[in-house]
């Protein structure tokens, strides 16, 4: 699960996030919506222990982030709009590197399984810089779930993906949710969020304006909120 209490983040005089409170239970798919600059990436970076909050506390996968960042990192998978992969390493070498960093057991089997799942088995020995954006993002998802995390943090994972890759990712996330993985995803596509997420959080200028379910709000109302 993910819980935030009164978290804020300031960069000098700029308040990127202010008094953000929410709790996402285990196995729920939450979509984070908001205009550019609303604070979505900052919030996801904080949940991923990449940056510290200026105020408040965060609990991820049952651990306080401030005191147990190391344990939290073992239990989260992160996908951002950057693939976080080395272009001069092959797909398999990238996964092996991250697998060793996360101390994954039976690593070779897990790599084989994920490359098959992401339809990348034939390209396993090719350098990642020769991959299309969609292939890189699929490999990025494989990297993120290599250690079977309980929480998936996805920052606009569909940017630049074609329909096939989007479908593949969606199916993968649905399977993860069925396996009790908590998914927290920032996304610009409202229709996608309304169709798939079980929970909608709307950020505007660093403040959490709404925390609801897709049934609890109409599309037009959502558009209005995001525009505010």
């Amino acid at each position, binding site marked *: 699960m993910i819980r935030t209490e009164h978290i804020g983040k300031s960069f000098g005089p700029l308040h990127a996030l202010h008094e953000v409170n929410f709790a996402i239970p285990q196995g729920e798919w939450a979509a984070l919506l908001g205009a550019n600059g609303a604070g979505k990436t900052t919030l996801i970076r904080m949940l991923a222990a990449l940056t510290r909050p200026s105020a408040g506390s965060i609990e991820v996968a049952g651990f306080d982030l401030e005191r147990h960042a190391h344990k939290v*990192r073992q239990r989260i998978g992160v996908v951002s709009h950057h693939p976080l992969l080395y272009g*001069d390493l092959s797909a398999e070498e990238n996964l092996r590197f991250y697998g060793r960093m996360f101390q994954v057991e039976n690593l070779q089997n897990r790599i084989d399984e994920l490359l098959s799942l992401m339809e990348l088995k034939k390209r396993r020995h090719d350098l990642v810089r020769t991959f299309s954006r969609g292939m890189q993002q699929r490999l990025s998802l494989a990297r993120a779930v290599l250690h079977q995390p309980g929480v998936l943090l996805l920052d606009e994972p569909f940017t630049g993906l074609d329909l096939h890759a989007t479908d593949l990712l969606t199916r993968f996330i649905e399977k993860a949710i069925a396996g009790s993985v908590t998914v927290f995803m920032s996304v610009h596509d409202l229709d996608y969020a309304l169709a798939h997420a079980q929970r909608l959080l709307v950020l505007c200028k660093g403040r959490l304006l709404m925390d609801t379910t897709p049934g609890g709000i109409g599309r037009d109302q959502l558009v209005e909120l995001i525009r505010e």
Partner: protein
Amino acid sequence: MNSLRQIYTILYKDVLLELRSKDILTAMLIFSLTVVVIFNFVFEPGSAEMATSAPGILWVAFAFASNLGLSRSFAREQENSNMQGLLICPVDRSAVFTAKVIGNVLFIFLVELVTLPVMVLFFDLSIGAVWLPLLATLLLGTLGFATVGTLFSVISANTRSREVMLPIMLFPVTVPVILAAIKSTAWLLAGRDLGQVWPWLRLLIAFDVLYFVVCFLLYEYVVEE
């Protein structure tokens, strides 16, 4: 034990990437060899000036070549935000720092091992009896330089003119290491007794320890914002 394995994993990855691209080693080698060749034409062959200037020239070549390598080494982690990828791993920032320092020392030392014989040949130096303490001097000097450089390359990467910022920050701070390394090299090449060189080596060791401890402690705060 886990940290040691993770340090090895990061180091192995860096070496593999360098073996594929060779961009760090090539840039450093071309620079250091060019410096040695150019200065070779400045002095009269076999002159006393040539012998007395050699240690300074050697360390100027190493210092500036290292600067190129350090800058490129961190730039590689910035491509595709790979540094962020490293930081989401359950690994101590100190382990990342240690792996990066070892990698940088390895690449710089390799360049020094190629440049030194060229220098010996062009400047007609005699290192037969002192090759071991000379290698120790190179290694200790490189360690101090690479330790500070590894930290500063992260800081300068977040500035607008990073190629300029790294040497501006790095060279003043590493002056004690460079001076001690030059002095130690000069006295070894002049055939001085090892007992006379030892104080300079001790100074190098002291600065290496100091720099490593300070940079080790600061790295976590530098990489996280």
